């Protein structure tokens, strides 16, 4: 009974989507129009495009391949601390890149813990730098995301199906054929595409761990075009390629997995009757322990490195931390103002809205920052709008993730309650206030938590809008490092990690607190 029963007005979401698209494409156009005739794309640029695609494909395939056993283990095992573990496993995703890279190197570097262990065994140290290092870091960042996406798929299999399968005496193999493989077939393309899209715009990770100019990504080529050659035309052109590649991947994913998404409520393990065998229990234990070790050891390294310096942190770091909280709060508000109507619009049938939202994933921050500067400079002092601009750009960057969280739930709410609301003549704001918002509270909390954490850890809109008097914490970390103060920088990084996790945890819990089923 779809047809005309439509309690949601998609025009607000559509408007928000048009605004987001106009912002991103407008920035791109502003940079392109400011360009003087340049050299166009050279062979090196095409090499960068090829490397970018190759590493993104590898990163996506490996992240998802590892995520499947981890998600399956988490889906069918109940153990103390499971909930906590799932939350902690999400940490790498919201970690600032530089902090994460140093944490990874403390574990996997030439002088890292793993190399120490290998040294005792008389083996040469691990050589992390190169394509495999880039992929390792990308798997570190994206395994949690892929795991959540796939775990969601597992938990969307109704418990009754497993009961029926158990009743029919289906073993793990049969369940795999009957239930799990079809589910993965539906969920995996979406997960692959999301991770691919994230890895396409990788820059600092690829550069630091890539081991040299072989690992040149499109984003680094944009960087070079912009600051080495001051060739704005080429920067815009490369940014276009990046957007097109990401959008193609994203649209394929949306087509393949219309209901794929990563939602909240992942703390409910389904009772399983087929997985009690010792072998499977060991297998799941190994999967969970490996993932936990891989994801948590670098975090532990960040904690250990930062701990000693915490007490001696200068006041300016705490001022920067307060500024980061302010930016994150503003950016979270902007994010929700954009994302909730957009999710409602998608649920009302305007699917193109989500594609517009995905532009945030594809846009180069450097081009976005430069474009905004070109647009804003003639009318306002860039520093006077630094905070709103940073909040806005962070919100746009977090938008694709927020939409993946909100859209499936919005669809479900409209499907479950749309007809009743329509029969009561409840529409627009009344439906939003009385049904959509209360029913989506948990997902909104989750999206807000993710948005706040991502904004907290992001360097923002590059230096052009970074008011030196009001530096954010990530900028302050770079400054400390730039002034040789590595210990203070490590402590500030730990502070940032704690703040990001706290923001995520508070908002995520807040959304579920006293929430009804």
């Amino acid at each position, binding site marked *: *009974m779809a*047809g*005309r*029963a439509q309690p949601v007005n998609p025009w607000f979401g559509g408007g928000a989507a048009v605004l987001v698209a106009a912002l991103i494409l407008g920035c791109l156009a502003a940079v392109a129009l400011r360009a003087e005739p340049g050299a166009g794309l050279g062979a090196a640029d095409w090499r960068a495009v090829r490397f970018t695609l190759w590493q993104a494909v590898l990163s996506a395939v490996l992240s998802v391949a590892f995520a499947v056993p981890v998600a399956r283990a988490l889906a069918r095992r109940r153990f103390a601390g499971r909930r906590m573990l799932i939350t902690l496993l999400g940490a790498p995703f919201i970690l600032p890149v530089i902090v994460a890279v140093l944490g990874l190197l403390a574990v996997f570097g030439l002088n890292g813990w793993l190399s120490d262990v290998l040294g005792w065994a008389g083996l040469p140290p691990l050589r992390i730098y190169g394509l495999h290092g880039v992929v390792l870091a990308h798997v570190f960042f994206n395994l949690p995301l892929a795991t959540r996406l796939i775990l969601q798929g597992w938990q969307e299999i109704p418990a009754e199906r497993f009961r029926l399968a158990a009743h029919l005496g289906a073993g793990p193999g049969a369940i795999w054929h009957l239930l799990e493989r079809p589910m993965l077939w539906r969920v995996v393309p979406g997960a692959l595409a999301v991770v691919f899209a994230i890895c396409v715009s990788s820059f600092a990770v690829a550069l630091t761990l890539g081991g040299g100019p072989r690992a040149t990504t499109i984003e680094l080529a944009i960087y070079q075009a912009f600051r080495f050659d001051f060739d704005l035309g080429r920067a815009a052109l490369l940014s276009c390629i990046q957007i097109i590649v990401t959008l193609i991947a994203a649209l394929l994913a949306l087509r393949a997995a219309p209901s794929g998404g990563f939602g909240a409520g992942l703390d409910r393990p389904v009772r399983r009757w087929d997985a009690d065998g010792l072998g499977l229990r060991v297998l799941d234990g190994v999967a969970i322990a490996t993932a936990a070790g891989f994801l948590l050891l670098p975090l532990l390294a960040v904690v250990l490195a930062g701990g000693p310096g915490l007490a001696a942190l200068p006041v300016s770091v705490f001022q920067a931390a307060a500024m980061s909280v302010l930016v994150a709060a503003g950016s979270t508000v902007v994010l929700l103002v954009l994302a909730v109507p957009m999710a409602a619009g998608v649920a009302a049938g305007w699917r193109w809205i989500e594609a517009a939202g995905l532009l945030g994933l594809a846009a180069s921050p450097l081009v976005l920052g430069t474009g905004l500067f070109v647009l804003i400079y003639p009318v306002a002092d860039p520093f006077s709008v630094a905070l709103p601009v940073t909040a806005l750009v962070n919100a746009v960057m977090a938008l694709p993730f927020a939409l993946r969280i909100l859209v499936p739930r919005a669809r479900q709410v409209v499907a*479950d*309650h749309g*007809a*009743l*609301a*329509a*029969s*009561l*003549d*409840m*529409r627009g*704001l*009344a439906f939003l*206030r*009385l*049904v959509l918002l*209360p*029913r989506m509270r948990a997902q909104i909390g989750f999206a807000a938590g993710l948005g706040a954490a991502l904004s907290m850890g992001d360097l923002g809109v590059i230096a052009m809008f970074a008011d030196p008097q009001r530096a954010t914490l990530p900028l302050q970390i770079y400054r400390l490092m730039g002034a040789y103060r590595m210990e203070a920088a490590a402590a500030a990084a730990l502070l940032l990690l704690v703040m990001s996790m706290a923001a995520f945890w508070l908002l995520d819990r807040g959304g579920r607190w006293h929430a*009804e*089923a």
Partner: protein
Amino acid sequence: MLRLEGLRIVQGDFTLRADLEVAAGRRVAVIGPSGSGKSTLIGAIAGFVEPQAGRVIWDGRDMTAVPPGQRPLAMLFQDGNLFPHLSVARNVGLGIDPRLRLTAEQRARVAQALERVGLAGFEDRRPGEMSGGQQSRAALARVLVQGRPLLLLDEPFAALGPALKAEMLDLVAGLTEESGATLLMVSHDPADARRIADEVILVAEGRAEPPVATAGLLDNPPPALQAYLGD
């Protein structure tokens, strides 16, 4: 009076035609085999299903283009008739104002309606905290405050036990008696029809037949109905 004029509904390769009238104040059961289009017919009257041709006319007014919530009717679905996160009082209040901005007088009406369906004192409960029968009563309380001249039931009591279902049907009969509303109820159980319906609309083989007196039809079923009834 409800009139379906040359109505044709097409869904894929399924077509349902209806050309019939229901007199005001009648209680009519819509019966027919599973998949014959009973719910589709009700959905078209409620405005959820768009007909390919024909008109839905209430008291001489063409409603075909009127959005569902603005049609002069109240409806109960098979399930999901209450919002699980809203209290019973708020769920019922939605029948008066879908934005829930209620005056004191309107809140008193909500309380009266709850009392009438036997739910006095249940105002602050959530649907999840009540039994199936109580949930049905709450939904009927909302129908009561909606005060619409046409009531459509799409088997809302199907999940209740026989005794409870009979109780609900009696409550529906009582409520429509008091308000004089016209009732159209989908049912797959001839006993339901016998219990409260004056007339029956038979939906079978792509057609909704005009209503005929319940007893006459059920005692002397035509072949299509006979196949469905099975005896």
